[in-house]
């Protein structure tokens, strides 16, 4: 584990990329380049992900999967060797502008990959959209990133907060839950998810008994759970992630609520934390664009490869990183490694179809994935797909003036 | 009829159950040296702290030149013309002697909330600080860092800082405490010098010094006034000898 998270400009990353490339020199029969000079310089891929703090695991999984995809393509992008420049974002918004500038101005990267944290994403995209760079967001879900802040050179391979939220309402109505308590961490991502949930749930005739926003990132839920018990709803829809998800699910079960009031949530509630949640997670239903157990050839292949190279189980974050890598591979192949042909590359990326472990997807006009959302249930610690709630969910991309 | 500059009426101060000051009514005349004697724990320092506003009395009244200052804070008391020195040396050790006195002298400004002109342009403050140093015989030590001076000199500086505020009434809390005989003589001489023009209220252990300096003496025991009178009266008072000298022997022992 300690092996994969080396932030900063890790020498080893450069060597790793170089060595992989060197090993494949013979294999690569591509004769690239319209510009001979372009071929000698390495493609600079700047990665701004958290390697410390609460989101550290997400950051390292995304980075590993991204590099896995590029190495699968011969360790090169459009025939050129790759130099990775890693910076630890620490998921700290105040540092985001400076760190982004470090990649854009000091390192002058060709591609910018990141981040995990939505607010860091906002700060990053604000700077990147006016810069000569192509940015790919492998996680941060704030709607605005491909909404009001959308730009031709900004892509997202993950999701918008809207996407797991909106189908959540539909799924609960389909399951026959009409009176629902809505609980979420009261910060941007949680609020956006809750809003999208309400949109479909209320339109379908559902009734929100009470909306309980809880302070982020606090994990003392006992008082709220007592309230939920007193309200006696049909079910509860939530947004929690990481440590908060573990705590919430365990508290929910300990308060005896899991027996009488089914628990639903945006998929992060049971992503990568079911081990820590243990029995308490059993039976929880969540909506997400991915599930570990998806029975797709691409998924099975990917999960094996990821386990082999990193020794870790892949998760949704790794999938998103892997797809970010795929997008780079496709874009650079289209321009044969000429990073200056931005317009052409963007065109190729816009029209790319990503054969993702989550299932094939394409990009919306705002450069967000158009993807299927699954309803999953935790069975024996694993997220099993119950059904596809909604096919080809597209973010409304409010405020996006592009396309 | 001599002018009464400071008057206390039925002054009391309780700390929990302890009566540190017990119904003290005293009058201090302008231009006189009024010493307060008493064994350790007699409540002398508490009395001075009450007079200088460091402590607020539990009951009773204090008036200065006819104005009620019972509940006034230390800064107010200082501004209306009562200066005090402390029993434990209480100076600004990192500052030079001159700077120590400067702070005292600068309090003559109506307010020091002045942000623009450099302080060193204030000639009058300059003169007052230097004058205070001179009075206390510290002119030669003007630029020495206070914390590096001898103990006796620090005691002198303590008084100089008070003088720099140009008070009408001086409260001196054991100015001779802990001094060797030579230093002690120097400071006694200084006090005698001051006594010529100023009103002094003096708390002191050193009987010889008190008897040589004071015009009037009040003896306190257990927070209460035992007797007040001239030096002769006190010297000859049986009650004082019983109460105080008895204690004093213990103290020496």
């Amino acid at each position, binding site marked *: 584990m300690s092996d994969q*998270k*080396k932030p*900063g400009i890790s020498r080893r990353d450069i060597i790793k990329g170089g060595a992989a490339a060197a090993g494949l020199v013979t294999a690569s029969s591509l004769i690239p380049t319209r510009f001979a000079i372009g071929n000698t310089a390495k493609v600079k891929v700047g990665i701004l992900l958290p390697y*410390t703090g609460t989101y550290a695991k997400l950051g390292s999984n995304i980075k590993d999967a991204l590099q896995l995809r590029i190495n699968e393509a011969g360790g090169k992008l459009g025939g050129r060797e790759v130099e990775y420049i890693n910076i*630890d974002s620490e998921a700290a*918004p*105040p540092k*985001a*502008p*400076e760190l982004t*500038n*470090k990649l*854009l*101005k*000091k390192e002058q990267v060709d591609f910018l990959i990141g981040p995990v944290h939505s*607010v860091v994403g*906002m*700060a990053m995209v*604000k700077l990147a959209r006016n810069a000569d760079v192509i940015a790919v967001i492998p996680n941060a879900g704030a709607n605005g990133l491909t909404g009001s802040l959308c730009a031709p050179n900004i892509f997202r391979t993950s999701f918008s907060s809207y996407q797991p939220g909106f189908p959540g309402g539909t799924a609960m109505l389909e399951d026959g839950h009409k009176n629902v308590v809505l609980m979420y961490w*009261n*910060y*941007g991502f949680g609020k956006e998810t809750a809003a999208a949930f309400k949109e479909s749930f209320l339109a379908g005739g559902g009734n929100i008994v009470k909306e309980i926003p809880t*302070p*982020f990132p606090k994990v003392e839920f006992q008082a709220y759970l007592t309230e939920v018990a007193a309200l006696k709803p049909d079910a509860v829809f939530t947004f929690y992630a990481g440590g908060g998800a573990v705590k919430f699910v365990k508290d929910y079960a300990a308060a005896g609520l899991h027996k009488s009031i089914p628990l639903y949530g945006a998929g992060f509630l049971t992503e990568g934390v079911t081990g820590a949640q243990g029995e308490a997670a059993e039976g929880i239903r969540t909506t997400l664009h991915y599930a570990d157990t998806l029975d797709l050839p691409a998924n099975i292949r990917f999960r094996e490869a990821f386990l082999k190279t990193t020794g870790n189980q892949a998760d949704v974050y790794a999938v998103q990183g892997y797809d970010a890598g795929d997008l780079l591979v496709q874009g650079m192949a289209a321009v044969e490694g000429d990073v200056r042909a931005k317009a052409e590359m963007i065109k190729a990326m816009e029209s790319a179809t990503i054969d993702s472990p989550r299932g094939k997807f394409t990009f919306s006009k705002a450069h967000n994935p158009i993807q299927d959302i699954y309803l999953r249930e935790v069975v024996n610690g694993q997220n099993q797909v119950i059904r596809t709630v909604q096919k080809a969910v597209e973010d409304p991309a409010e405020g996006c003036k592009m396309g | 009829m001599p002018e009464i500059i400071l008057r206390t009426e039925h002054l009391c101060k309780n700390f929990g159950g302890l009566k540190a000051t017990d119904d003290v009514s005293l009058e201090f005349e302008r231009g006189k040296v009024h010493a307060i004697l008493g064994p350790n724990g007699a409540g002398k320092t508490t009395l001075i702290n009450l007079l*200088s506003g*460091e402590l607020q009395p539990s009951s009773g009244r204090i008036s200065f030149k006819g104005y009620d200052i019972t509940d006034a*804070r*230390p*800064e107010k008391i*200082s*501004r209306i013309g009562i200066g005090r020195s*402390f029993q434990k040396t*209480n*100076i*600004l*050790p*990192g*500052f*030079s002697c*001159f*700077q120590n006195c*400067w*702070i*005292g002298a*600068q*309090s003559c*400004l109506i307010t*020091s*909330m*002045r*942000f*623009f002109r*450099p*302080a*060193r342009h*204030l000639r009058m403050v300059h003169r007052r600080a230097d004058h205070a140093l001179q009075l206390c015989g510290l002119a030669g030590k003007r*630029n020495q860092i206070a914390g590096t001076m001898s103990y006796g000199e620090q005691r002198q500086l303590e008084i100089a*800082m*008070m003088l720099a*505020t140009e008070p009408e009434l001086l409260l001196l809390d054991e100015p001779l405490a802990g001094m060797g005989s030579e230093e002690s003589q120097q400071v006694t001489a200084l006090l005698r010098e001051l006594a010529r023009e100023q009103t002094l209220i003096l708390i002191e252990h050193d009987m010889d010094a008190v008897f040589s300096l004071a015009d009037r003496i009040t003896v306190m025991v257990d927070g209460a006034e035992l007797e007040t009178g001239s030096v002769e009266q006190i010297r000859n008072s049986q009650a004082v000898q019983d109460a105080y000298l008895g204690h004093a022997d213990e103290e020496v022992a």
Partner: protein
Amino acid sequence: MHTVTRPIIVFLCLCLLLLLLFPVVGSSFYTGLVTKIMILSIFTISLDLLIGFTGLVSFGHAAFFGIGAYLLAILFGNLEQINYWWSLTLTLSLTGVAALLVGWLCIRTSGVYFIMLTLAFAQMFFYFFFESPHFGGDDGIFMLNKPQITLATRQLVDLDNEHHFYYFVLAWLVGVYLFLSMILRAPFGHVLIAIKANEQRVRALGYSTPHYKLVSFVIAGTIAGLAGFLEAAHTNFVTPAYLGWHESGMAIMMVILGGMGTLFGPVIGTFIVVLLQDFLPEFTEHWKLIMGAIIIFVVLFLPNGIAGLIFSISNRFSSRAPGGREG
């Protein structure tokens, strides 16, 4: 009380010259970084007024930095055109009012209580911006535009130009430095420094010390608000993390490392700490370990900071040529 000797003045002028020339040679990234450092320096100098000159250890000073930044973003963030003069005046006066209220409550206590109270108030403001539904919560606020500095419809400085912004901030830093050295030389400053040395004595000499401390607190808070204003204008982005206690902790670190009780010390400290934060992560993921070790080293072996070192060196120089004393 330190005496600013001639070698130090020469040293400071050299530093200023370096800062003046830097954008000419420095890359765009470092110009931006130094701009940020100078903004933070304004903030740490203001903290030094409290810690180093008044003896008030505020562990919540970042609150005023954050309030300044938030006021600009809340009041003016959505406007197409932000009038610099108006926004600055309004931001600073409201930050001053906030500092007055917090100061009034905190000044009544001293020592550890003061430390904990300032910390707790800062947390209160943090949660106010963090949880309030109106101010962006955890997401913070993104601003559309930078303030426009115009005088009679003529643009004086173009803040969108990073070199202009750099010199604009440098001018503010020099201005704040000169302003604070002015008030410290004035009667007011003498009282502050004396309060730090021995408050009880200063009170007995006739100064209403709570008033002086409060005024000092308000001045420091307002200048911190100015730094926040500049930071918000610089990045067009504010986040509740600006008010967090880690920011206050790092600011104290910068002041102590640079040398408290001198105005240039905090600037040096800020440069060192921010540059370390920039470089260290390139060597190890666990760079905060090194940061912690540096802090401990400073506390144990360098309590007067780098300015303390500079003073002892410069005293060696100036002791050869006596005179030039008295401050």
